[in-house]
């Protein structure tokens, strides 16, 4: 088990969450979601075509109508999955990409909401992905709602969050409550360590399983084809990964 890198478990988990999708879009600086989508594509290639759009990439760009096309195609229902991070994420899956403190003169200003206030509503599978899992990120209530985790029934909302994946564990989201359920803890974490790191309450089984590592075949695919593909768009991330593999003394 210690022969698998933490990021490989994250990427494999992302690929599992993407089961059944046809078209995934990821942000420009999102190597792990991209890797997860590439793994999904490699696993599914005999059954279906999985498209991967990486914003700002030339190689992984299916768009020819400018930066509005991502939003248009999401509105058309042509994007099945998307990833959102967040400076703050709260227990109702609200996401804050704007800042900490009283808006507009926030104490800490982040870039802004980007397309979240739209995509979170229309993309069926939105995966919240943030490696940093601390009480300052996983808060009880966000200071600014860039995009809300759930909406009243009269609001047009074919999309929304399905999961929250962090450096410590994987949660599913139940929009009927609404709230998160801890599904698994990553190696080295426990229910207690996650509760301590999380500013919001969440549900969990009495005994929470560990996040599964990839099987040997998947791991091989990941370290060969996916890593090679990833290198084209994210050379620095791929180099890092290769270095860590070398340190593991595992043949890459």
């Amino acid at each position, binding site marked *: 088990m210690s022969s698998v890198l933490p990021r490989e478990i994250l990427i494999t988990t992302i690929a599992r969450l993407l089961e059944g999708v046809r078209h995934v879009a990821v942000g*420009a*600086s999102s190597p792990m979601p991209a890797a997860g989508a590439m793994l999904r594509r490699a696993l599914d290639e005999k059954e279906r075509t999985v498209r991967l759009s990486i914003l*700002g990439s*030339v190689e992984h760009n299916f*768009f*020819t*109508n*400018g*930066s*509005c*096309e991502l*939003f*248009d195609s999401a*509105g058309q229902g042509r994007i099945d999955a998307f990833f959102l991070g967040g400076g703050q994420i709260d227990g109702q899956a609200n996401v804050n*990409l*704007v*800042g900490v403190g009283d*808006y*507009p*003169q*926030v*104490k800490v*200003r*982040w*870039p*802004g*909401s*980007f*397309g*979240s*206030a*739209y*995509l*979170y*509503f*229309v993309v069926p599978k939105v995966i919240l992905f943030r490696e940093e899992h601390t009480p300052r990120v996983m808060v009880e209530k966000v200071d*600014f*709602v*860039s*995009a*809300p985790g759930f*909406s*009243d029934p*009269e*609001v*047009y909302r074919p999309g929304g969050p399905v999961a929250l994946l962090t450096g410590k564990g994987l949660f599913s989201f139940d929009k009927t409550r609404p709230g998160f359920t801890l599904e698994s803890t990553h190696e080295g974490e426990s229910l207690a360590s996650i509760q301590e790191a999380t500013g919001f309450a969440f549900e969990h089984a009495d005994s929470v399983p560990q996040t599964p590592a990839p099987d040997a075949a998947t791991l091989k695919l990941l370290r060969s084809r996916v890593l090679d593909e990833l290198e084209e768009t994210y050379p620095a991330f791929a180099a890092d990964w290769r270095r860590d593999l070398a340190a593991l003394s595992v043949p890459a």
Partner: protein
Amino acid sequence: MQSDLKGIVSRMRSGMRIAVPVDYAGVSMALTRPMIEAGLRDLDLVCVPTGGLQVDMLVGAGCVRSVETSAVSLGEAGGAPRFNAAVKEGSIKVIDATCPAVHAGLIAAQKGSPFLPLRGLIGTDVLANRPDWTVIDNPLSDQKDPVVLIPAIHPDVAIFHAPMADRHGNVWIGRRRELAPMAYAARETYVTVDRIVEGNLLADEMTGAGVLPALYVSAVAEAPKGAWPYGLWGEYNADVDELKRYAAAARTQEGFDAYMSETAKQGEPA
């Protein structure tokens, strides 16, 4: 039609509403310093749909009154230091949007329509802080169906950088189609290009497919590598080291001032 950087900036005025493109679509960095040197003030910037170095520099130089945007950052080089500081100090007004809303506002202007409806947004603090956005109950639905109306955005000026233009003022924008609605929506559009080409870009169906016609272009100036340190699609990559150098320097106003006067001496990039 053909002009130069100074000629273009001489047609801008303090208080104008200026649309600028996202960092990967062709930012006219070449116009940034001339705008600062011309002493423009109280500009209202509209980022289509996000901003970066150009916005941060104009803010740092005190040219800006407000920024309407879905985000401002330096990408890999981190947060936008002068923008973030100005927001915290309250010295500029930030008008937070979401990407498709900026596009919707421009496309409403493109179509001569007063507004465009946009899904999403309901329940966000983005919407809560936009008194100019209106929620109505969809008149075409027989059920309760709230939808947001985004009013048309009519910039006074749109500026961007593109690979090439011809002497008639036709500008090749390729698949960066968001540049077209900026120009359609704006009263005046100023474009810098890496090169001016002979012939007519509209004369050939292949090049014509990627052209913003001269009809929408007020002036073109040649500015080789005019997006630097940003990249230009299909031409050159971003100079991330330079962006990082700026990001480090501009953490303080003094550092920003020093960077700007130092790079002013350097002149054009290699």
